């Protein structure tokens, strides 16, 4: 069984929700990323999303754009990230999901990517610019190796498209809280609750909500009805604004612990 499925099975058994933490790999460098992953895992994140930097991140807001540019300045590649995963896999058992735009995967070669990622210990993949209709090739390889393919549903998705996202998703379905790009938001629409509940009526697969969530209060509110919440830009900011590595590890650990606690109550 895929680690993501095991995680949700356990959480559900205990009536708990998932806290999914995102960070951009290679920001500021891959060695630091590996340390951060350990900190995030140790402080209670249930799943970790590993952002693969891309030159044209059109679904991302300023925080992740800047983080990606910093990583690319250090020539951080998809291949190097997969290698890093294989090194840290023995140290943590938390499910790891790669979040990448399609071109780096396409250029790597789809079959080799699925094989190498799985072998390194990656459990799933999220590709924001790859809708299910364009994903037949990657799904063919991913199904064989049980690498989860996670798709998006959004407030503008038609009923038919929601069903497509659900049927093609493995692991969980990523519900986008609001139309737009990634990044912190003060106000999240009240309609999320209704939308998530509607999705839950037509599937038993976990529905996790991301985009815009940055505070424990927001996390707690959304985790009361969703199966999990995803936090990205707020974590990247903690990594980017720290004055020293020590301070960063400390503030990152504190924040993750806070968010994990908010989700678990």
């Amino acid at each position, binding site marked *: 069984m895929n680690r993501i499925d095991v995680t949700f099975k356990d959480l559900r058994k205990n009536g708990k929700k998932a806290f999914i933490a995102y960070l951009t790999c290679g920001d500021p460098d891959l060695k630091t990323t590996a340390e951060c992953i350990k900190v995030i895992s140790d402080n209670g994140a249930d799943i970790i999303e590993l952002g693969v930097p891309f030159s044209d991140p059109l679904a991302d807001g300023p925080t992740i754009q800047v983080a990606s540019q910093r990583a690319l300045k250090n020539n951080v590649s998809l291949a190097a990230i997969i290698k890093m995963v294989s090194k840290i896999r023995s140290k943590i058992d938390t499910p790891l999901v790669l979040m990448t735009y399609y071109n780096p995967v396409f250029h790597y070669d789809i079959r080799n990517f699925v094989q190498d990622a799985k072998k390194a210990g990656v459990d799933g993949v999220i590709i924001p*610019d790859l*809708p299910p209709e364009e994903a037949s090739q990657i799904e063919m390889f991913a199904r064989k190796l049980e690498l989860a393919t996670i798709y998006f549903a959004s407030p503008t998705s*038609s009923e038919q498209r929601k069903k497509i996202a659900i049927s093609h998703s493995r692991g969980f379905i990523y519900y986008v809280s609001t139309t737009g790009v990634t990044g912190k938001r003060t106000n999240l629409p009240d309609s999320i609750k209704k939308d998530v509940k509607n999705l839950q009526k037509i599937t038993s697969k976990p529905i996790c909500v991301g985009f815009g969530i940055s505070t424990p209060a927001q996390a707690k509110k959304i985790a009361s009805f969703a199966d999990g919440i995803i936090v990205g830009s707020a974590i990247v900011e903690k990594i980017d604004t720290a004055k020293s590595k020590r301070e960063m590890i400390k503030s990152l650990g504190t924040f993750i612990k806070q968010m994990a606690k908010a989700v678990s109550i």
Partner: protein
Amino acid sequence: MNKKNIPMPNKTGYFGIFGGKFMPESTMRALEELETAYRKYKNDKDFVKELNYYLKDYVGRPTALYYAQQLSKAIKGPKIYLKREDLAHTGAHKINNTMGQAILAKRMGKKRIIAETGAGQHGVATATACALMKMECHIYMGKEDIRRQRLNVLRMKLLGAEIIPVTSGSCTLKDATNEAIRDWVTNIRHTHYIIGSIIGPHPYPMIVRDFQCIIGKESKKQIMEKEGKLPDYLIACVGAGSNSIGMFYPFHDTNVKFIGIEAAGYGIKSGKHAASLVIGELGILHGAKSYLLQDENGQVQNAHSIAPGLDYPGVGPEHAFYKKTKRAEYFAVTDKEALEGFDLLAKTEGILPALEAAHAIAGLKKIARKFKKKDVVILCLSGRGDKDVDIVAETFKLQ
């Protein structure tokens, strides 16, 4: 060659293996709605009537097909005709598409328009259509392009558009497109994104091509009147590829040969160019699969061209299809050659071409000897050069 009975693109937006719809989920519904609306209106009597009215009385179509006798003589080549898109209102072919899309957006009930622009010609054409149709207009433009196309920036402002400077990446067309897509993802419910070229996810490459096809359709009719036969060659510059596809497509089921000229910038070997068809690799950018300038890790590389409208690392999927099936031939000319092309047309014909179109002139000059004397060539003069006089004057050291 594409058979007449196979529609291009197919239902899923593919031209052979190129094209598709590689976009965030939030945009998918809007893309579906756009396709439905477009298919509904493109043959709608009132829509066609309104568009044709504006194209004729407002844009000034048909644009002239001019026999460039002095240019033909100067390069000792074939008989050259210029399709004068530079004479269209706003000074370039871009208005053909923005008028069509603005009228479509109005029918769809969208009140806010966004667009990306490189040379500023598409931005000006969008701002113009929005002023005419009374729509709110926001133009994304790279900081670097704002600097080098000041005239067009001022024109857009005077037309009432808001210019949003883009400071990410190379600060040019690619980055302006990213930023426009981000805006669209956010404001998808009430905003229409007027893409300026045959790029982006399906149905954009089809819609923009169809609106630009008027260039080729008119040329076909005009050359029959003047020469009594179809031309032997069509030649046009290719950035992302809208003026060239607009010229080529109506001839796709004939034997007329197509030549596309890309920007070689400082030279292909320098790595600073925009020749995505000549040496790009297959990849995905801005919603479509096509040829792309990218590095060994699949990161998109910055393009370079003296012509801001060609300064783009990708190319429309239909051109990629033409290249792969050898329906068209593509090669590139450098910044320097393009400037020589600019000078040549100015001195022989008294026309200042846009630097983009100057690439087509330079390309034609480069292969002049390969033509037969009796060959008839139509070159798409996609825009006028007023916007470029600063750059050219600087290079020629004019006071």
